[in-house]
């Protein structure tokens, strides 16, 4: 059994594929690649695939990670091209390699965020004030129901940039098996304190960071 880690992009129309659907889709896709995917044993054998992190519906990403096992060795470039041959518009595999880092080492993700609205100057000022607050309390669904958390200590944002159509910035938030905070949490909280609409928000995961502070990939 050979362990393989792959990295893929999810952009354009593909961002509307939910995490659950993506999982199901990949299982089907493997059948079409002809790759010797390893099946779990037991009563109901199925291919084993695992995603490092879930990506929220509507987000784009440059760095999604999918692990799986093969029964026999296949050239990594060939894995990438075989997978890409069966992908829909918007999903593109970038690399395949033997995994070194453990998935559990993932600590944070970095996202780029673009908020679109009419008066971007005002939006930038308001958002900048919002980020200065002592605490940013949001409601988050947990296994035990809704609970209140303070995002402030965990948010790291880059400088805000503003043009005619949008305000953009990068944000780093906790990610991994323990804690996962989405940029939407932050933006929804912001939306609650302003009295004008944001037309659209575009979010893309740029990179994944390990607990030692280095890039995971």
């Amino acid at each position, binding site marked *: 059994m050979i362990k393989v880690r792959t990295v893929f992009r999810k952009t354009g*129309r*593909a961002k509307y*594929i939910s995490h659950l659907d993506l999982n199901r889709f990949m299982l089907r896709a*493997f059948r*079409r690649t002809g790759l010797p995917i390893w099946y779990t044993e037991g009563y109901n054998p199925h291919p084993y695939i695992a995603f490092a992190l879930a990506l929220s*519906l*509507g987000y784009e990403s440059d760095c999604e990670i999918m692990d799986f096992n093969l029964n026999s060795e296949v050239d990594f470039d060939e894995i990438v091209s075989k997978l890409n041959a069966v*992908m*829909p518009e918007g999903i593109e595999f970038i690399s395949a390699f033997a995994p070194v880092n453990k998935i559990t080492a993932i600590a944070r993700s970095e996202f780029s965020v673009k908020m679109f609205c009419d008066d971007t100057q005002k939006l930038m000022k308001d958002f900048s004030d919002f980020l200065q607050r002592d605490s940013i309390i949001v409601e988050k669904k947990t296994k035990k129901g809704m609970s209140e958390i303070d995002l402030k200590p965990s948010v790291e944002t880059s400088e805000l940039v503003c043009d005619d159509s949008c305000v953009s910035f990068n944000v780093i938030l906790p990610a991994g098996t323990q804690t996962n905070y989405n940029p939407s949490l932050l933006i929804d909280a912001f939306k609650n304190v302003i009295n004008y609409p944001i037309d659209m928000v575009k979010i893309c995961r740029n990179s994944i960071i390990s607990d030692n502070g280095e890039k995971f990939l």
Partner: protein
Amino acid sequence: MLKDKIEKYLLSVQKPSRYIGGECGSVIKDKSKVDVRFAFCFPDSYDIGMSHLGMKILYSLINERENYWCERVFAPWEDFEAIMRENDIPLYALESLDPVKEFDFVGFTMQYELSYTNVLNMLDLAGIPVWAKDRGEELSPIVVAGGPCVCNPEPLADFFDIIILGEGEEVNLEIMDLYHEFKRKGAKRSEFLRAVSQIKGAYVPSLYDVEYNADNTVKAVVPKGNAPAVVTKRYIKDMDSVYYPENFVVPFTDIVHNRVSVEVLRGCIRGCRFCQAGFIYRPFREKSTLNICKQSKVLCENTGYDELSLCSLSTSDHSDINNMLSNLIDYTEGEHINLALPSLRIDNFSEELLEKVKKVRKSGLTFAPEAGTQRLRDVINKNVTEEEIMNTCRIAFEGGYSTVKLYFMMGLPTETDEDIVGIAELAQRIVDMYYTIENRPKGRGVQVSISTATFVPKPFTPFQFEAQDTKEEIERKQKLLIDSIKTKKIKVSWHNSDVSLLEAVLAKGDRRLSEVIFAAWKKGCKFDSWGEHFKFDKWVEAFEECGISPAFYAHRFREYDEILPWDHINYYVSKNFLINEDKTARMAKTTPNCRQKCSACGVVKETGVRCFD
């Protein structure tokens, strides 16, 4: 761009992936290189429409032609519809995300009566006039319909420019070719429609005037110009040479039937007298085992699906069923594919095949005796005896099943209270039999579920003349059935009989029904087949406002010499044959199946070839 506008709202609706396309297997073309564009509309939600096999076939068929492009369109669910209307997003097709209005053809497949209001709603969302007469002289878009419901096209006649009768594989392309020619000439809509009426299978409703008698029955259907007096359906002669797709569009979201379906045969030899499909798809034609297996394999490989189902009216009637199933089971097992078997008549299976089938069959056992007594089963020509029912259940119980689901109809012609009580008695005998089996599943009680539907008389069946029971009568019979059941091991459920009434009216209606459909839609009726959306009170209002009595269409026996609204439509089965079959039914006599003996239904007269050697 429309795409940006759509994306702006997409994340605020349920299951957005159904509104943005991009699925594997969807066909994208360069529209500057395309001559004719076809928007294939399924008048229901994506989840339902994407499960439909006919759409997959015609989609791929049209797209095989380099200069034609077929795209998919579904009815948006109410959350997205509200957003579309509020923000001026017109109905668009999933491949190009272009407005449907810009297409050459806008085609609807009519699979059930309760989707009629969705057609109007979709046309309206597209910004296309719902009435054919309001579409002016510009050539496009041509609004067409096909599918089983249009065998009586009249209730829908005023909404469509062309109605396609019968199987579409050949005639659709013929119509598109003719259109292409007229488009190049810069022709007017009326010129094209007159020309298209000369293609066999293409019915142009606007070229016919309907006259009525004082008693509201149809007096005559009069063709204008050189439109044919009788319009005849199309059928495919050879199932082995007819086009079959090698790939399907594979949705990302989970839909009703998310799997490969391979059609194994068309038509049915059985001739159950209530079953419209059994008559309108005649003659019986089958695909060779070789082809079925080949197509199954190709589709599984190209789609990556891990489930395969066989599609037909009665798969067990395939002449090579043993061999076919045996091959398919071997293939699917080797590939980790689940073979979904339809309800099969297992009485003629070999021991060995039965073992194999048992291994792959996971779902529960369903069976459709349709009527509770042998007499009534003879009336409807459902050729299944109590012994066969018992045998099948016994085999199932011995194989480890402890639940069976039985389907019945209520309100069948000649039905008496004895027949209703017979349903309960039959279920009771199955329960009793379960406890006589020594190796029955241990520690589990038996559960027999009875599901009853109200009988809906349909055009082109021997029962097209028959009246549907009134709601009061059905309710009385339901109560009688409940009172006849003596054990908790038998459970009863039924369909809403208001729904059945509406189905009967829309199925057997004439052109005057279009006003009612329009009025109902204006009152907010849509997605009528979804229980939570069905607004019967609105339909009742619509009937009243239009001065149309549902009872006239549903609850009235039609004399054999009455001109029926669909008498100018020829589905190969002759009216005389249907009259004789209805008379035979009333004598509780059966008619042999086509393989045993040809009953001269009229099909051979039309096709010129015998159905069986």
